[in-house]
């Protein structure tokens, strides 16, 4: 009972410290509101406003048809350029794609000579190049096919294809990035808050003071975990409802409370990790750098930015030991696919185990290093 009271009191103190630092509060709110909103809007990997230039040497109805098929919002209206302008334009980054329709293209198509259209892609623009190239190829194939069918009166294709997008029918990238930004902010900010709170106490000598009181390192750490975790959880909840669900209009397929439960478990792991880092670093500048070295891979390799299944197996295995991978996959499952506890319990369990391991490691180091400093 008294132990719980200690943890409660220390946690309340922790929150008072946070409340005292108004700049910090501003950053906290910013990152979960406007910062998140802008990042979600800008990072959408859908194809938008891609720039295409066309060298049309055929000037036939078919080539006109191709030009007309490259439409907004995916593409900017195509620019007609001369052959000599292709390379300089690509070099300067004016166009991501150039399409070269050769002389007598339409005639050769109808004559069954399989003429070739050349598509140049600026491969330095990773996502845009990749998705855009697929789009253009399909558009060209579609248009040519329809043109030939219409001209020759061919029967429809022998097999028709109906693709359906599950969970996000319009492939709205803003939803995805909004949810993933939320997840990333939760991870990054909780690690910093909990870790920096411990370093601050060390640098100001207050930690030593706590250690001569009838308090155990466990209680001191537990207070930091719950207080900082709760603050982030509260801001994240508001962000999920007001910004992600509200402003970004993302439908939440699954249960909000299940997501919040998972976020709470995740915060247990990340705050414990923050404290662990703080016991390794000896000063705030060291902590700041160490934190960057940990947080960047943790968020980049978690599956929130790129699919995990394409990563090398070793990386996938290592990342299974981090809380972010589980939380990201859980967030995607609950928020988009409407998965329930029956589907995501392994992730919840993993984060509980990982959190406990981090906490135990931090506790061991805390006892060893902090007492001696």
């Amino acid at each position, binding site marked *: 009972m*008294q132990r719980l009271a*200690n943890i409660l009191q220390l946690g309340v*103190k922790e929150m008072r*410290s946070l409340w005292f630092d108004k*700049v*910090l509060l501003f*950053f906290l709110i910013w990152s979960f509101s406007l910062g998140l909103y*802008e990042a979600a809007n800008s*990072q959408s990997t*859908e194809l938008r406003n*891609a720039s295409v230039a066309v060298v049309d040497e055929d000037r036939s109805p078919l080539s006109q048809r191709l030009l007309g098929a490259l439409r907004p919002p995916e593409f900017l209206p195509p620019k007609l350029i001369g052959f000599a302008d292709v390379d300089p334009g*690509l*070099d300067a*980054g004016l166009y991501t794609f150039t399409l070269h329709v050769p002389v007598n*293209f339409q005639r050769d198509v109808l004559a*069954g000579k*399989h003429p070739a259209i*050349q598509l140049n892609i600026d*491969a*330095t623009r*990773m*996502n845009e190049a*990749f*998705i855009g190239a*697929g789009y253009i*190829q399909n558009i060209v*194939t579609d248009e040519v*096919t329809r043109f030939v069918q219409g001209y020759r009166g*061919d029967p429809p294709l022998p097999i*028709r*294809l109906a693709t*359906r997008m*599950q969970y996000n029918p319009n492939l*709205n990238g803003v939803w*995805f990035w909004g949810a993933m930004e939320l997840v*990333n902010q939760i991870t990054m900010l909780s690690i910093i808050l909990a870790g920096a709170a411990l370093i*601050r106490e060390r640098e100001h*000598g207050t930690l030593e*003071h706590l*250690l*001569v009181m*009838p308090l155990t390192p466990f209680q001191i750490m537990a207070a930091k975990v719950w207080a900082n975790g709760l603050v982030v959880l509260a801001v994240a909840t508001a962000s999920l409802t007001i910004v992600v669900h509200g402003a970004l209009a993302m439908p939440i397929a699954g249960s909000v409370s299940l997501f919040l439960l998972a976020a709470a478990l995740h915060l247990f792991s990340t705050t414990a990790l923050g404290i662990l880092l703080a016991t390794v*670093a000896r000063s705030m*500048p*060291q*902590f*700041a*750098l160490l934190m*960057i*070295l940990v947080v*960047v*891979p943790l*968020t980049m*390799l978690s599956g929130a*930015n790129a699919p995990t299944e394409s*990563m090398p197996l070793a*990386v996938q295995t290592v990342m299974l030991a981090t809380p972010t991978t589980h939380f990201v996959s859980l967030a995607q*499952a609950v928020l988009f*696919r*409407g998965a329930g506890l029956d589907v995501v319990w392994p992730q919840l369990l993993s984060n509980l185990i990982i959190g406990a391991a981090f906490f135990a490691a931090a506790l061991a180091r805390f006892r060893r290093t902090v007492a001696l400093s």
Partner: protein
Amino acid sequence: MSAAEPVARLAGVSHRYRKVKALDDVSLDIPAGCRVGLIGPDGVGKSSLLALVSGARRLQTGTVEVFGGNMRRARYRNQISPRIAYMPQGLGRNLYATLSVFDNVDYFGRLFGQGRAERAARIDELLHSTGLTPFRDRPAAKLSGGMKQKLGLCCALIHDPDLLILDEPTTGVDPLSRRQFWELIDRLRARRKNMSVIVATAYMEEAERFDWLVAMNVGKVLATGSPADLKARTGAAYLDAAFIALLPEAQRAGHRAVTVPPREMETGGAPAIEAEGLTMRFGDFTAVDRVSFRIERGEIFGFLGSNGCGKTTTMKMLTGLLPPSAGDAKLFGQAVDPHDLATRKRVGYMTQAFSLYSELTVRQNLVLHARLFHLPHVQVMPRVAELIERFDLAAHADALAASLPLGIRQRLSLAVAMVHKPEMLILDEPTSGVDPVARDGFWELLLDISRRQGVTIFISTHFMNEAERCDRISLMHAGKVLASDTPAALKHSRGAATLEETFIAYLEEAGGKEPDAAAAATPTKMPTAKPARGGFRLMRLLGVARRETLELWRDPIRLTFALFGSVLLMVLLSYGMTYDVDKLRFAALDRDQTPESRDYVQNIAGSRYFLARPPLYDQAGLDRRMRSAELSLAIEIPPGYGADLRRGRSPEIGMWIDGAMPFRAETIRGYVQGLHYQYLNDLATRHGVTSPTAAATIEARYRYNQDFESFNAMVPGMIAILLVFIPAMLTALGVVREKELGSITNLYVTPMTRLEFLLGKQLPYVAMSMIGFLGLLALSVSLFGVQLKGSFAAITVGALLYVTATSGLGLLMSTFTRSQVAAVFGTVIATITPAFAFSGFTSSVSALEGGAAVFSKIYPTTHFLVISQGTFGKALGFADLAEQFTALALFVPAMTLLCTVLLRKQEK
């Protein structure tokens, strides 16, 4: 005294911190060329007055003239700052803990524009005369309190000031060091007759030696005059008494001389504290060497000794904070056990340095500790109220601890140590910096609880009159206990009249006399100080840069991160991160089960992008397995597919794609459609006809990266991204850390300009980051085999501009935040997300709209990304990238300008 112009003249000066009024309409002329003392209780505005005179704090109302000029004018302050030296309150607060003694003084010499030879001569002279020469290379953090104060004095005196302002310079300093400190000041004044010295002090015996005194109380000046004047005016024999007589009636009433009631000997019971051969070694340094003593219950046991002699370490071992290297300690007859919480409740401990929560108010601190010590709920508030009254904290009860003057903070710490009515108090210099009246009040309290409640008190102090009140005292030096007895017996043993003499006799006998500086009375001929010029000076900038570099150099962990952090991240990320989409898991719901349907599924399974999973049997299974992310794609083949295909009835195949991750879903759709057309072509070929989908072919050429591996495209982008994090984080704490630890005062009171300070701080980190950049470049070209097609010069110049911009971003965070936590937080927000989201790394900047588009045009990563990708992949040079270079080149000075505007040259 001096009939000349006063050195400083205050007229109608008031100063307030939020609700608290520190100075209330003070008008005062401080005479030049003499030693002026500021005396008065804690929190009456002494420090505020000194900070205003030195120009460190911004004037609110009234006028302050120093050397006949108005201190409100920034230009004038800059002009005369070389003539003023200011040493703030607190041990070594304006020093740099990791720098050596020499480097600390050297840094100040550089700030005042002294050349190499001049600095060397001055530093030699100063270190010699303060007896610090043997410790020339010792880091400031490892100096004792007295030595730190002497070093602070050296730093203050390096530029031959005409006005020396010292704020409680001897607080927490042992008597021997204190005596040496004042002898030093006297010698310096003997040489520089015109130097004025203004000192705030809590020691009345020191004040006796000053020429002119200002007695202050609650923001007002009570009286001025020589010590003799003041004594004569009040008819008191000692200054203490004189000061008390000057106080208003109400304040005086509570005070009376402290009398020590005799202790009734208790019999029986284990001693309260028992130490046997207690030893503490740090590496090969023995801090405490076989210390033994016994303290009876109810006894007041004093611990005296020079700074750094091991008192604090001994106390920490008794509290269980430090496990001893050898020997053992018992509290209440039981061995000290760091895990024994029950004993902790019986002990109250007060550390030497302030260790309460500065962001909480006085009352909140007390309540928190009362609760943590598990006072019954109903007793918490009465106990807190009692302590607030007893320690005279009512006026400050709702002030933040951070805003309290030193003396009041000490009182709060004491109150906190006693909140749970412990049976034993371990107090480490509890009265340092506390004014005499409050100190007496505190001792009455101690005597009361000791005699009436039998509380054992183990106290260390530098005040001899306090030591006299102890039942027994131990003299400690260099880790050893020299003698232990009653004060009277100790005096008797050395035949000395006062305890102070006894103490010094013991110390000198033990060789504790710090190398004395009598020899320094013959001053070496020093070059006369050239008045430092105002305006921008490269030398000061380099001085700041040099100090920053030294600090980094002394911290190998940070240095390693600074140099190799980016490379390490690059290895991790480039190995792990990929935007390739493959190894996609799919399953088929084949409702047809004919050779045709199996053929179609086989076509997908044969692709290198897809991995086949066990087939699906129903819609429920499809939903479940897609929901759990086991499948990214499900193929549904309708019943009768084979038959329909044979009869040319154009059956329809359904593809279910997991759209949760749109980027991946788009790619899957592209793959599926491509495979579908491919299949139709194959089908047509098998039947000897031409499929309409094969009417034309598309030759796709991926430029600049023929294999279109995400890796090759990612490396140049990664360089751009990584050069944000570490450079920004390196500078992010540069300014705010100095704010938090106190050395920012040096910016306020030296001729150093804000621009010199900021650029000097940035310079070393730009250099470090460039080494990091070259590391990234080497790694990309050698290990990753990504070819640099363009100009090396172009990308290097670009990187230089870029890391200057990104480290400027960190510096910006550092200038406007107030805590290190906030600076780290802000830097993360300003780097990680924007670098990925707004720079064009993941998606094209042409797709951005609104605020994000504007932001991305300003953000440096956007531009360096183009430079990096252009030079790596497209063989571009300066001319092609002129726009990006210009953007970066504009960002750098804009950032510096913003920092300069946000940084203050005076404390608010």
